[in-house]
């Protein structure tokens, strides 16, 4: 009863959710949600550049996100502006440049909605390979730098003093974040990628009491959001990205219930 494209979207989506789980937890712990947003806004520029020079979309998005991340670091050193102002500056200017470029590329028919909000029809077999191979590489690298990354998240000085080399793992983490955005842009869309990073991890935070548990629950709720969201997208013919995020939001609201009950019990 399922069409091939739907199976492809499902397989790719589950892969993305698995990678987004642990990275999303780190984004929440490090309070980097706005940073993730900036990277995903700049992804649109990556896509237009990919069309202009007929490059691979994921590759081009990854490069642009990485460049933006490096720009941010160098601007932080050079200017007296706060991190959030610089992030806003980069997010909106890269988004604007991307949209202006789309105007120039009028000879190519663009599915702007698809770019911004994701399109399951666009997922090809090659994309599945990209998601699963790219995702595995991201997870393997994450596994090796985990101790350093995690300890630096808790306390940078402590991690540095005890030989964890946090400056290296921080840099790699930025690239991994750019990587996961590149992998998921087709499916979720430029505007909503941060949602898939954040919301499953936020759900997990509500109902977990150790870092490992939080990661596992983030992955599981990410998978659930993708699967249910894609079914809904197929049934009621909506964009895939928003459908997935709405399902994640519903799960988040449900995850608040145990917290409420706990709070009520403590009051008594």
């Amino acid at each position, binding site marked *: 009863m399922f069409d091939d494209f739907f199976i492809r979207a499902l397989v790719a989506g589950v892969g993305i959710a698995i990678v987004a789980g642990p990275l999303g937890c780190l984004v929440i712990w490090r309070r980097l949600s706005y940073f993730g947003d900036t990277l995903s806004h700049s992804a649109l520029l990556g896509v237009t550049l990919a069309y202009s020079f007929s490059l691979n979309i994921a590759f081009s998005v990854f490069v642009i996100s990485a460049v933006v991340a490096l720009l941010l670091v160098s601007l932080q050193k050079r200017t007296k502006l706060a991190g959030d102002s610089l992030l806003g500056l980069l997010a909106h200017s890269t988004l604007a440049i991307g949209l202006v470029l789309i105007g120039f590329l009028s000879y190519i028919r663009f599915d702007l909605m698809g770019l911004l909000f994701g399109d399951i029809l666009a997922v090809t077999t090659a994309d599945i390979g990209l998601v699963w191979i790219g995702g595995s590489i991201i997870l393997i690298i994450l596994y090796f730098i985990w101790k350093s990354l995690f300890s630096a998240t*808790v306390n940078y*000085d*402590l*991690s540095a*003093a*005890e030989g*964890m080399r946090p400056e290296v793992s921080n840099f790699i983490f930025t690239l991994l974040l750019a990587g996961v955005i590149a992998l998921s842009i087709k499916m979720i869309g430029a505007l909503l990628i941060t949602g898939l990073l954040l919301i499953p991890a936020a759900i997990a935070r509500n109902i977990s009491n150790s870092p490992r548990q939080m990661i596992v629950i983030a992955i599981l709720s990410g998978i659930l959001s993708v699967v249910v969201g894609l079914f809904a997208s197929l049934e009621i013919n909506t964009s895939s990205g928003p459908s997935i995020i709405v399902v994640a939001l519903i799960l988040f609201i449900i995850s608040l219930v145990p917290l409420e009950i706990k709070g009520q019990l403590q009051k008594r």
Partner: protein
Amino acid sequence: MNENNSLLVRLKDCGVQKSSKWIVKGISLEIHKGKIVTLIGPNGSGKTTTAKMALNILKSNEGSIENYSTKMAYVPQKISIDWTMPLRVIDFMNLTSHINKGEIIEALELTGVQHLIYNEIHNLSGGEFQRVLIARAIAKKPDLLVLDEPVQGVDFNGEIALYNLIKEICTKFNCGILLISHDLHFVMSATDHVICLNGHICCSGSPKSIVKNSSYIELFGEHNAATLSLYQHEHDHSHQTDGSVKN
């Protein structure tokens, strides 16, 4: 030869400059195995900065740093763990190296907080958390231990016990300790070498010699210096925790 074998860290004329202002300058010090070096000085005198140079967290803008330590452990002065992270004491103990559960419990017992092992870090009081921090550093069995005001927020009896523990660890593991402390009584009674900082090294030496030093007296006030030298004198024939504390 013997001297060199025990050497863990040597700072020679080191200093840290931030936006053209020297935070500390001309710092020279050595930390040896089995010895406690203490940094004292007023707020903003560069104690933490000096400790961070010894730990290789901060690079020195002048001079040279030699670090022969193979395993360093650090108890930072201020650490706030984001409440977005669900972190239990046991996870925190394993933060930078894997330590087996028996050793974790043993270390937590030493600082008196073994009952908190499965508690979330956020639910600990300031003093309890400080005890966990010290336990974590001890459990790593370091050869160099850097403690930045380790007993802040700990109750009075606990403070004495923890200072005794630090002294005990120093001899038991034969590790070098760099301690930042405002508790001049402990500093004067239990450490091997005292360095008095105020942007630079005002004076340094054994506790006995330093209380007589004029720059020390200037920095800490005559009254304080007098009570401490008095204390030092008393200490020759009484126990260190006899309660003759001014404040």
